[in-house]
């Protein structure tokens, strides 16, 4: 390809990349997108000379006045757009930008047009950066970087010598040069270097948060079941929604992911027959005990409850329309980038305001354990405060009461009664999402007596009512039930459809115990390969988010602190990371191959090492093409190519040793240089040169043993070179 053509082509690719960025950010109407794609395709074809002269396209007026009037028209449209159609600066601006791009693509004539195109594409990629934080942006960015390097380089190289009159277009002799292999790899090398520098600078640039013009990006996800009032059936409406709500990591658990994980949201204590609500609106502010760490319970276990081991979770919560913070029951410490946290009377955690962006926080939770007294006690005494609040029943619960009594007829202790109710609900009813409860007047009666099918809300509500009729304090809890473990990233993916409701029962010696009357749903589909890929993509997206999008000054300071702490922790982190990488790679392989046994970590290292060696071998093989003077035309097509290769390697060894070799150094001159500065190698060099000259310039061919002797000389030279270093 000629430089001129290549310059044009790279400019079009640049524009196309910027346009792709805007396209994937879903910010333009489809007609505009299709128009731009056609213009791009047409421009590319024009570069390669496809419409040759006589077609209708040459009839397109090239006069600048036409294009200028188009531009003015576009600007008018932009103003219309701004004021009436989109009413926001960014989308209108993007539309205008794309129209500008199209116009520029059609009028690429002189150098100034190219510069305008570069500026427009830069603004376009900036706009797409403002619109999105998804991980595919990386690929767009990489392509953009490549295209920028090529475009700028070619733009410079097709300019002629700077003349006194800069406005005059210079026809440069370089414009007609061809892109050789060497140039191609050189430019790609420059692009790779630029990319590395970009990464380094990105991680070094100080993050100053002077958010003056902060614009919340995107809206919060709509959630159900976490408002003040929960109607029965609300959760059912999101049971098909696959939107991700949060991701939960359990860093301290070695074998996480095997069980289902409950994430508690809010609890409700008042039921009026159709909806649940909270009786008390009291909230108190949590005190912070350290920088960003809040204690939910001040002091240690006051009530003497038996507690399980502390469970630490790292939660990445998407922007929701509720201010609830989710955690495993029951949260003790919450740490994150919060101004403050409120807790209500039923240990539900709230942020002071709804967050407009993703938040990341850590919770340490401890479950309550059932004590032996509670299990075996014949009667349980409850505090009056508890009884007053958690034994509220709606009207018309007599049927339920009867049912409860009937179910627990054989139970002696309260615990057995509770267990009986649980068992009854678990086994006696069908789980189904089809239940249409919003129109029924007595949804629980319908569920328990008539339909006998329902989902989590029904089961939970039923259990609470039944227990309350038995005099056991219970309450409804809404939250999420995490079942989807992403083995690549090591976290639970919690989606909208994982919204769940369950029951908490009060035991005087143990506190609130979590119980779930909903039978486990239909079989979780076995992880298919496609799902595996999806999960891989998800974890990549999470890491992208953590490493790039959320990279903040705090992260920079953390990095600096880590570096200061010394190399040990860094080494640990690196080894952990590599092991995790190896494990991830193995997991991927497993989904392909289906092996069950876990190979020892040695294997992962071996695999890594092997791939590194393969890569470096490839690079070494390709490196030969980089050395200058190797693009001689007319290489002898004789059998003497081997001796020529040996001679060339001898040249390389000598050059590395410091002997200056110019392209115009003849073999004899080289021998003299060697004699002067590297006398130990003289004999080998002399013999090798003699063999080479005879084979290359004479008419004779070398015998087998002469070639072997040449190889010996080369080896001797290499040994000498290594010895002298």
């Amino acid at each position: 390809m000629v430089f001129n053509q290549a310059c044009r082509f790279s400019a079009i690719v640049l524009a196309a990349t910027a346009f792709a960025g805007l396209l994937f950010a879903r910010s333009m109407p489809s007609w505009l997108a299709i128009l731009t794609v056609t213009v791009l395709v047409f421009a590319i074809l024009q570069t390669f000379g496809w419409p040759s002269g006589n077609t209708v396209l040459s009839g397109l007026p090239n006069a600048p006045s036409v294009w200028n009037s188009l531009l003015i028209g576009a600007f008018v449209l932009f103003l219309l757009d701004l004021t009436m159609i989109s009413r926001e600066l960014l989308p209108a601006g993007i539309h205008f930008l794309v129209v500008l791009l199209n116009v520029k693509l059609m009028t690429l004539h002189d150098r100034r047009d190219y510069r305008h195109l570069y500026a427009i594409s830069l603004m376009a990629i900036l706009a797409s950066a403002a619109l999105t934080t998804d991980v595919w942006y990386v690929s767009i960015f990489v392509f953009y970087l490549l295209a920028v390097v090529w475009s700028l380089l070619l733009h410079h190289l097709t300019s002629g010598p700077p003349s006194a009159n800069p406005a005059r277009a210079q026809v440069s002799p370089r414009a007609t040069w061809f892109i050789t292999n060497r140039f191609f790899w050189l430019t790609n090398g420059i692009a790779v270097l630029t990319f590395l520098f970009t990464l380094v600078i990105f991680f070094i640039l100080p993050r100053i948060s002077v958010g003056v013009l902060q614009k919340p990006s995107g809206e919060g996800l709509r959630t159900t079941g976490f408002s003040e009032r929960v109607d029965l059936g609300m959760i059912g409406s999101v049971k098909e929604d696959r939107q991700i709500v949060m991701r939960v990591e359990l860093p301290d658990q070695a074998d996480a992911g095997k069980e289902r994980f409950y994430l508690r949201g809010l609890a409700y204590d008042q039921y009026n027959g159709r909806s649940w609500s909270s009786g008390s609106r009291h909230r108190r502010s949590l005190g912070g005990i350290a920088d960003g760490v809040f204690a939910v319970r001040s002091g240690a276990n006051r009530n003497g409850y038996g507690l399980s081991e502390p469970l630490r979770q790292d939660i990445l919560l998407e922007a929701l329309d509720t201010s609830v913070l989710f955690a495993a029951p029951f949260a003790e410490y919450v740490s994150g980038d919060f101004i403050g946290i409120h807790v209500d009377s039923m240990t539900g955690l709230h942020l002071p305001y709804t967050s407009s962006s993703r938040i990341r926080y850590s919770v340490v939770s401890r479950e309550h354990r059932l004590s032996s007294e509670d299990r075996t006690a014949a009667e349980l005494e409850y505090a009056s405060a508890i009884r007053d609040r958690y034994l509220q029943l709606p009207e018309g619960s007599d049927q339920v009461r009867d049912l409860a009594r009937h179910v627990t007829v054989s139970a002696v202790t309260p615990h057995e009664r509770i267990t009986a109710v649980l068992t009854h609900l678990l086994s006696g009813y069908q789980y189904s999402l089809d239940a249409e409860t919003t129109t029924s007047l007595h949804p629980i009666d319908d569920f328990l007596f008539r339909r006998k099918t329902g989902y989590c809300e029904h089961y939970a509500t039923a259990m609470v009512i039944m227990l309350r009729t038995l005099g056991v304090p219970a309450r409804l809890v809404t939250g999420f039930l995490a079942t989807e473990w992403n083995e690549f990233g090591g976290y639970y993916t919690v989606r909208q459809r994982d919204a769940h409701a369950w029951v908490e029962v009060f035991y005087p010696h143990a506190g609130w115990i979590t119980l779930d009357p909903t039978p486990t749903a239909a079989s979780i589909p076995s992880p298919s390969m496609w799902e595996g890929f999806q999960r891989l993509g998800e974890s990549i997206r999470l890491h992208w988010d953590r490493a790039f999008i959320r990279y903040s000054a705090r992260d920079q300071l953390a990095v600096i602190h880590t570096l200061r702490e010394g190399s040990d922790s860094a080494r640990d982190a690196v080894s952990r990371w590599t092991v995790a990488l190896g494990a991830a790679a193995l997991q991927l392989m497993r989904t392909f191959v289906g092996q069950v046994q876990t190979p020892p970590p040695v294997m992962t290292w071996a695999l890594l090492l092997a791939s590194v060696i393969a890569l470096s071998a490839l690079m070494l093989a390709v490196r030969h093409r980089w050395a200058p003077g190797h693009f001689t035309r007319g290489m002898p097509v004789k059998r003497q190519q081997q001796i020529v290769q040996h001679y060339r390697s001898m040249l390389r060894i000598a050059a590395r040793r410091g002997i200056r070799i110019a392209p115009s150094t003849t073999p004899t001159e080289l021998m003299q240089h060697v004699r002067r500065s590297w006398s130990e190698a003289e004999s080998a060099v002399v013999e090798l040169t003699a063999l080479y000259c005879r084979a290359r310039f004479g008419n004779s061919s070398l015998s087998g043993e002469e070639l072997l002797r040449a190889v010996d000389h080369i080896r001797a030279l290499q040994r000498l070179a290594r010895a002298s270093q």
Partner: protein
Amino acid sequence: MLQDSTPVTKAFGHNPALRIRSRLHYLATRRSIRLTSEGIRFLLFTIGIGVAAINTGNNLFYLLLAMMLGLVVISGLLSEHCVRRLEFHRHLPDLIMANEPTTVTLSVTNHNRWLPSFSLRLSDIVSGQQLDRGLFIDHLAAQRSVLLSYPIVATTRGKLSLDCVRAETLFPFGLFLKRALYQVPAEIPVSPPIKPVSLRFIDEMVSEGQGLSLPRRGHGTQLYNLRLYQPGDDSRAIHWMTTARTSTLMVRETEAEDQRRMTIALSTLAPDERNTLFEHSVTLVASLLWHLSQRSFPLRLIVHEADSGLGCGSDHLFAMLRLLAVCERRAPDSTGPTVSNPILTLGHDAERGYTVVVLPWSDPEASAAVSADRVLQAAHIEGLTNGF
């Protein structure tokens, strides 16, 4: 890296503060960076993106900012690589004439191991001034050299010194102009121009010179005489054509050639107000020498105390012109012009041939003491150099 710091140490050896300052100055003049208009626009964009990034805290903006900064860094690195490790050689003539364009050649070698140099623009630095010669190298491969030539014209007699060569490049992106200075000193003496001198005058001189010496027999090529063969004559001198015609042996005699030599002396004494006349005299002497040399006269030049010796041929002419190029006018001082002025001791003898003395100015008593076959005084010089 300061490759050649010895000039600095030589110049400012003992004073450390001065040395540091001069070293910094040295570094500053060796490399410099300018922004082009495109570079300014690029930086404006970068600043804009930076402001946006700081404002919104969007890390993707930071990524784009990092990309722009990365491009700047790469640009700096590559352009530095382009202009370093270049070697320059000048090929200069040994003498040039004033007001006559001459071709000077510059050989540029790229000593980089791998990377070629692109878009190099070279210019001379003459006494601090940058002179653009229109030299542009598109592409110079690693370890290769290229020869570039360009015309120069010297306007005044004296010495033309070319100090440094500056290499600048816009590579790789056309955003920054990187400049490097290389010390490649060179000096060429500039001889006075050769102007046409009135032919009549030259003929006069020649005929006078010849008139003063009678043609006589001797060693040469011009035919002088044909006479009968005498025993003992060189048989190669037999003129066979005449012999065949007259049937008697005839011998050819040639004319002696060595009478045509000339010596020209130039006095360098002149006060400041006679400067133009002095320069004209130098030009006159140079032109005379040129024209006489064309007629293959053996010539000798005496300027103040420099004596070129007798010789002929273009090399000798070159030596004489070089003397004229470097001669300087001396203002007459109180010690008097009579101090060791060899001009005055010129007389006429066969050794010097025909002597001419050019006196742009002289003391009246000194001028009386001058004796030569021909003395050109100021008025005559002005008459001859009217058109110069």
